[in-house]
């Protein structure tokens, strides 16, 4: 069930209404049932996976808490890691691994044919396995007491607003909220609805519209000139931002309507003036997950310089792999690691030579954006050869604004639609910083400034400009 579907439009108000009508002790069970229903709407069998993951981690945490014997605790931890990463390995990485092993076998003339599995990737598996892993690791390290209620823990794993694409929540934040009796607070509900509408606007008006041009150009990349590829790549950067941050806004808003606060996931990432800042603003819940559960345990920056840089490289390569079983994602991750390492190593020299003036800040912003854009090519392209072809075109013909190249821009979308897309992009770029500020106000119990005018306007814009093809959110595939 997609957030941008008619089913969700019916499902969500029903769940919320019943939630507030039910006595406090029944609410967790109601939300759990609703969450399983939400997940089963994709495929009934998927629910068994999430139940399995829930049961294993609930039980493992109990067993770990029952003993002080460290080797035993570690064995329980390995069981949890094995089960969750095993699920990911089977459903997400088995074929990738098999295909690459097959290549190695073929190169060495080893006569072996590895099987190919036709598993359908369970939606959101990367998100909820990381969420349960965080719980187990927190319990193992003594940062968290194990949850005694299976229902509460099951809801933590499957809470429908953030189940399929995050934000990846920490048990220490979310589980205590399930024990609170949430009141029917009109101000808070209005705030939640406002954030949902803003998220829908980003998804339907920007992401899905731009996705049409991106799909056309990347789908016919050999027929596209440099300018068309640049425009499509810029559109993709906006598409993925609006798609994913739009999803996060809907998730956070939906949870807020019921009284739950989820963590922020985005904060104007394309305004970042360094790679480090970009990652503090982009997919924050995943970045902090990798920081807390991979980077720091590896030693973080409290190790020798070579090891530190290796830690960064490893974390970003894993982050790339988390996104998908494809070398393109790994290269995307490694590319970001390289960018980050270069910026960290050169930061002082850069500052000493160029200073800290406004012009330098602008240059920093431009360079960060440029490299982020170029790396998105790996994320969007189907394979490595396509990525390299597009990158070559982008870098070799960036100023090839001949009449033919100009005409080529319109080969992928009618001129009127493309002009309208550009107008909407411009309007979005101008409005996003202000609206992001309004979203931040919601955390302190306030609502959008000029909300009675702004939010209905957003609704009207959605209705007129929205792309209502029920396009799935990009991050669902991860």
């Amino acid at each position, binding site marked *: 069930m997609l957030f941008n579907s*008619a089913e969700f439009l019916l499902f969500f108000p029903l769940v919320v209404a019943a939630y507030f009508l039910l006595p406090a002790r029944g609410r967790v069970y109601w939300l759990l049932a609703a969450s399983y229903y939400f997940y089963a709407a994709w495929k009934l069998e998927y629910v068994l996976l999430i139940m399995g993951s829930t049961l294993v981690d609930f039980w493992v945490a109990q067993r770990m808490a029952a003993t002080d014997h460290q080797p035993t605790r570690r064995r329980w931890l390995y069981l949890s890691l094995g089960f969750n990463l095993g699920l990911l390995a089977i459903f997400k990485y088995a074929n990738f691994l098999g295909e690459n092993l097959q290549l190695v076998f073929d190169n060495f003339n080893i006569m072996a044919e590895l099987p190919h599995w036709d598993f359908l990737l369970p939606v959101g598996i990367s998100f909820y396995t990381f969420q349960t892993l965080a719980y187990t690791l927190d319990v193992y390290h003594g940062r968290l007491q194990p949850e005694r209620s299976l229902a509460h823990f099951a809801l933590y794993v499957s809470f429908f607003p953030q189940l399929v694409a995050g934000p990846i929540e920490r048990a220490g934040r979310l589980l205590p909220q399930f024990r609170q009796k949430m009141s*029917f607070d*009109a*101000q808070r*509900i*209005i705030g939640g609805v406002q954030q949902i509408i803003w998220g829908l606007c980003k998804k339907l008006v920007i992401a899905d519209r731009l996705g049409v041009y991106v799909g056309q150009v990347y789908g016919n990349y050999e027929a596209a000139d440099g300018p068309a590829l640049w425009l499509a790549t810029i559109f993709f950067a906006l598409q993925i931002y609006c798609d994913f941050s739009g999803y996060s806004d809907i998730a956070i808003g939906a949870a807020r309507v019921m009284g739950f606060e989820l963590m922020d996931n985005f904060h104007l990432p394309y305004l970042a003036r360094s790679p480090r800042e970009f990652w503090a603003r982009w997919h924050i819940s995943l970045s902090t997950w990798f920081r807390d559960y991979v980077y720091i345990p590896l030693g973080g920056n409290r190790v020798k310089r070579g090891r530190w840089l290796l830690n960064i490289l490893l974390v970003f390569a894993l982050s790339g792999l988390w996104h998908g079983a494809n070398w393109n994602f790994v290269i995307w991750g490694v590319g970001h690691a390289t960018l980050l390492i270069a910026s960290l190593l050169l930061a002082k020299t850069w500052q000493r030579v160029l200073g800290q003036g406004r012009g330098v800040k602008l240059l920093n912003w431009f360079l960060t954006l440029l490299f982020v854009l170029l790396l998105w090519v790996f994320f969007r392209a189907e394979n490595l050869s396509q990525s390299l072809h597009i990158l070559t075109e982008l870098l070799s013909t960036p100023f090839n604004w001949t009449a033919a190249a100009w005409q080529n821009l319109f080969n992928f979308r*009618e*001129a*009127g*639609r493309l*002009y*309208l897309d550009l107008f909407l992009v411009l309007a979005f770029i101008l409005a996003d910083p202000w609206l992001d500020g309004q979203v931040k106000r919601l955390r302190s119990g306030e609502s959008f400034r000029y909300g*009675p*005018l702004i*939010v*209905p*306007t957003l*609704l*009207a*814009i959605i*209705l*007129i*400009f*929205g792309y*209502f093809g029920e396009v799935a959110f990009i991050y669902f595939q991860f």
Partner: protein
Amino acid sequence: MAKLIKNGLIGIAVATTVYFALFFVLTQVQLSGKPAIYWTSDVLFPKGGHAYQRFQEFDPQRQYDALILGSSHAYRGYDPRIFAEAGLEVFNLGSSSQTLMQTYQLAKAYAQPSTTSFVILDLYEAALIGDGMESTADLSQNLPEDAPANAILCAQADIRGINMWTLRQLMRADSASYLTSAYVRQGYVTSADSVGQRAPYVEKASIQDFQLHYLEELIILLRTRGIPLMLVYSPLPSDYVAATVPAFDEAVLPILERYDHTLIDFRTRLPLKDEAHFYDAHHLNQAGVRLFNEALLERIQPLVIE
């Protein structure tokens, strides 16, 4: 709760005002040669074309021997002039990508016992697949009467229907933005009488249950009104027959059996040649239409007299 309701009502009022104001502006602003509103969506069609011409010519009060319904196979495949040679006055209410949902709504509005002796429905696989959005976009702008247009928009049950409805209201006074010379009369549109580039059959979406439901509703509606319904499958090129027959038969024939209805099946009955009697991948040219219509008339004349 009172605050929530108050805010909700204010929000709806403001959203409605902004929506109509913005929509109006977009109908006035020209972008790439037409009002900007048409670039906002793939399903906002300007008023005009053969659908406009057809429904302008059609007189619901007039007596017809038969109304013909269906998709492009209907309005390009049943020539009222050939029917007239056999003494039958028919009007072709087929329209682009018409699905069973729209067919049902059109029959409900226009097939009245006082004016219609019988109805011919051209059944074609494409009338049963897809969501019918294209036809709703077409008919919602070109039907002169509000009632059937609104009924189709409601039955479509899609949020984009709101924009189609608004466009209809704002463009009500405007004349057609274009007309087609291919339109003959009585709803019929000619096909170029030459064989074009043959395209192979492209697999489409599967048959939709809700469209089958409308087939049943149509049968029931016309039976209730006492209007005979002739279900006809017009001729198809050989590759289409091979590709579409099994799925169509599996979905449709049990329904017809349930209602004791027969299908007048011309899919393979006539000795038509793919290159000589079709002008594109699956539409009959005028030579094909003549052969088909004459064969059909031969088949249905006894039923009409009866």
